[in-house]
């Protein structure tokens, strides 16, 4: 009866000298993987144009209806781009369906995950906010 008790004590003492696994969050941030699904963002192509062609596929597939796209015609024939592109991060479930559906690779999920805000309207991202790194 005493043997297992002593073995248990030895085990806990052994743990005491191991390195703690705590990540002290606000100072040190957790390293997320390459494929981490964080905030959605819009991408530009090499010439600096928004890749998005306002095809509404992401808006259609979005299961939580977080995306709103308002299209706008360009000066040339068949030129179409979003006048407004709004993502409500309070609704977004970070499923990545928009990224899969996009034929142009224009919308991607980045690796940011700090979502806490004091006000809800801060989480409604417009085109300019989505184009930030």
């Amino acid at each position: 009866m005493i043997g297992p008790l002593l073995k248990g004590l030895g085990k806990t003492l052994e743990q005491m000298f191991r390195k703690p696994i705590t990540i002290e969050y606000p100072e040190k941030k957790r390293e997320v993987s390459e494929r981490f699904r964080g905030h959605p963002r819009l991408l530009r192509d090499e010439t600096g144009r928004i890749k998005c062609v306002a095809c509404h596929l992401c808006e259609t597939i979005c299961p939580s209806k977080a995306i709103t796209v308002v299209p706008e015609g360009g000066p040339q024939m068949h030129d179409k781009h979003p006048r407004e592109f709004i993502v409500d991060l309070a609704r977004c479930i970070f499923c990545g369906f928009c990224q899969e559906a996009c034929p142009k690779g224009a919308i991607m999920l980045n690796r940011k995950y700090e979502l806490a805000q004091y006000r809800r309207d801060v989480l409604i991202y417009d085109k300019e906010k989505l184009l930030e790194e």
Partner: protein
Amino acid sequence: MDWIVYAVITLAKTALLLFVLLTAVAYATLMERKVLGFMQLRLGPNRVGPWGLLQPLADGVKLFFKEDISLPVGEPRLYAVAPWVTAVAAITPFLAIPFADTVAPETVQIFGHTVDLARYGLHRGVVADLPGAILFILAISSLSAYGVVLGGWASDNRYSLLGGIRVTAQMISYELSLGMAVVGVLLVAGSMRLTEIVDAQARMPFIVYQPMGFILYLTAAFAETCRTPFDLIECENELVAGYHTEYSSMKFGLFQLAEYAHIITVSAIAVTLYLGGWQGPWLPSGLWFVLKTGALVFFFIWVRATYPRVRYDQLMTFGWKVLLPLSLANILVTGCAVAMWG
């Protein structure tokens, strides 16, 4: 006129002891959280001050300024008194425990008048050098059960009441084994005066003669202080928080203080009875006492990090059917040995 000097010295010693003990209690809470943290691969509190060293202070301030919720039902007077009974009963035994060799010269000259301090043992490192110190300690420290059971009853809450009742049953079962385990030491030392027991361990600490007694004492002490694995009185999954469910603010703080003071007290008694008290080479005697007591307090925390809580019937069975017969056998063997070689 000598009595003025006696009174001043005793008061000074008591004040010093109280200050050191309360500080130790505050840091025992930090030590518990830190050690448990490290054993669970966490860091423990480290935000308040360097390495979290000011955490007890912050906790104290927080407890002090919390709202003191008083109950509209139950027994308000007993409800208010209960934490004090527990806290006082947990601290008082320390008065009889020798914590150092000597703290004052045997005689002092005051205005050309010689006062003999050795007459009442006032030069020694103990507040009250009682002839029956062990009896005093056992009697006072078991009073803390009253505070707990009164608190549980006065809260007018079934869970608190069950917690309080568990304390009485547990105390009665284990107080017996605790007292019986101590008898072995008394037989070997031939005295109940703690200073004499410590002096008798000058060559060899009593743990060498009483290894069984030491283990029995520690086991019973875990039950006495209601620590894991015997902390059934505040068993969260059955009793919410047991007897202190309805307590808040400094009343809760007093219960908490009593718990840790109790741990320190039983550790100090174990050090005095089995580990040679303040005796040790090289270092000053008071430091040895603190180090040994600290090691035992660490052991209490270590055990908490290791073992799960026992079931209530297991607790009772273990107390009456294992611990008590073993302590009686220990007395028998010790008695025979003392009669033959002592």
